[in-house]
């Protein structure tokens, strides 16, 4: 079967075409608005939040995805899928309404997808993977600018959130810390890079909720701790500024704190729920320190677990992961009714 998926939950406009018969997923095309030279072609910048820009981009992006797939929309595509939530309501509406119109006109079944399920399943897009290789129960860690979730899956249709953030998402903590350090946006890749050049043992930062026995996270206090640390260091520095080395060390200390909390809680969840598969997803899953540490520590504590890390191109928002999540709903014929169908910015798993 061939699935056309559209994802517009936040800043990115994305569309993808996925082919699957029985074996692994074959991605025929995968377009994200920030990848293609849409600025030049359509004369618009992609502002960070302006959802109305999605309206200008959704058709070109979908058209490009279909064209690149080499398929004919009416003849070859079997199903249309779109993200229903969670996300920005105006942004979600663009993708969902586009999908509804396409499904209506082409008379194809429509599948609505939860954005978070997409992130959790992004690892399935790796070339050597296929749905049958996932053994349940599975544990998923979804880390992004908007979410920090530990999810327990009994099968592809049973999702239970066992841990969530009480305040800031981990990606948000990276962005805000980068802002405090004047490093630019987005914070994740910059801090990850500088942290590698730094020494995490020079400064001590708190590990929020580390010893709390549940699986919830808290990152807002960590950001405030960085703020205090900077004030303290600046106060005693002769030039009243932070040197490159100090900034690297602060990044390393911050990253070490984030990674330790995420990994410790993940290991604790593995110990309790004994999953057979571990899935990682979300924008922050591109973080090298997080990927390496998770792999090492899980291999040590539970060597039999299959670990699925998404390829870097599938860590940020994309429509390929939406097409994968849609596939499992298609197997159960979980189609949406176009009438009364609305985007849900607070959609839960």
């Amino acid at each position, binding site marked *: 079967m061939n699935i056309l998926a559209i994802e517009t939950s936040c800043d990115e406009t994305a569309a993808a075409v996925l082919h699957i018969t029985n074996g692994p997923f074959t991605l025929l095309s995968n377009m994200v608005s920030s990848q293609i030279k849409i600025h030049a072609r359509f004369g618009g910048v992609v502002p960070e939040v302006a959802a109305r820009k999605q309206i200008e981009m959704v058709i070109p992006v979908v058209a490009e995805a279909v064209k690149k797939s080499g398929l004919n929309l009416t003849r070859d595509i079997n199903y249309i899928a779109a993200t229903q939530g969670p996300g920005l309501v105006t942004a979600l509406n663009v993708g969902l309404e586009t999908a509804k119109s396409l499904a209506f006109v082409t008379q194809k079944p429509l599948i609505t997808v939860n954005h978070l399920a997409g992130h959790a399943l992004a690892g399935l897009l790796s070339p050597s993977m296929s749905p049958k290789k996932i053994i349940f129960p599975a544990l998923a860690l979804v880390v992004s600018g*908007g979410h920090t979730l530990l999810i327990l899956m009994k099968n592809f249709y049973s999702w239970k959130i066992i841990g969530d953030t009480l305040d800031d998402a981990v990606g948000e903590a990276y962005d805000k810390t980068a802002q405090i350090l004047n490093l630019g946006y987005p914070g994740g890749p910059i801090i990850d890079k500088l942290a590698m050049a730094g020494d995490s043992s020079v400064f001590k930062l708190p590990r929020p909720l580390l010893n709390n026995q549940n699986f919830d996270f808290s990152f807002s206090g960590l950001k405030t701790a960085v703020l205090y640390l900077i004030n303290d260091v600046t106060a005693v520095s002769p030039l009243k500024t932070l040197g490159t080395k100090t900034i690297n060390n602060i990044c390393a200390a911050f990253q070490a704190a984030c990674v330790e909390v995420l990994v410790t809680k993940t290991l604790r969840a593995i110990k309790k729920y004994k999953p057979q598969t571990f899935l990682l997803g979300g924008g922050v899953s591109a973080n090298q320190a997080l990927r390496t540490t998770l792999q090492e520590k899980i291999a040590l504590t539970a060597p039999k677990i299959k670990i699925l890390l998404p390829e870097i191109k599938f860590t940020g928002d994309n429509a390929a992961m939406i097409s994968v999540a849609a596939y499992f709903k298609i197997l159960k014929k979980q189609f949406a009714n176009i009438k009364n169908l609305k985007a849900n910015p607070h959609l839960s798993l």
Partner: protein
Amino acid sequence: MQKKYISSSEKETKNIAKKIAANFTSGMVLGLIGNLGSGKTQFAKGVGEYFKTKKPINSPTFVLIKLYAIAQPAAIKTLVHIDCYRLQNPQELLDLGFQEILANKDNLVIIEWADKIKDILPLKAVFINFEYGKLPDTRKIIIQKPHN
């Protein structure tokens, strides 16, 4: 006219919010102003706990607007938590249905980084400033009552 509170911890910021929240009514708009880490989200969490939102409040920075249903029957039906941190201009909030949110009198609206959208806030908005105190972890929370 203004009223000032001193908080010495995140927990106390939440408790101050819970205390003040007794005066909050449906249709009210609260504008929280203060730097990163000054306690705005903790304050919003305290208000959420006072009104017993069905889900605990967390940061709205990424999605900009989060809606929380109030568990018990009350004049306030929904607590709307907005964050303007990522906004480039007020128009972006208008695009997200801000007028409809303000027009719904069942809402209690809490806006973080409200200074970024002052131009589109109603005159009746109550501003609450968060400032760093002299001692570590202390915060000054200053409530500015509207003029009329």
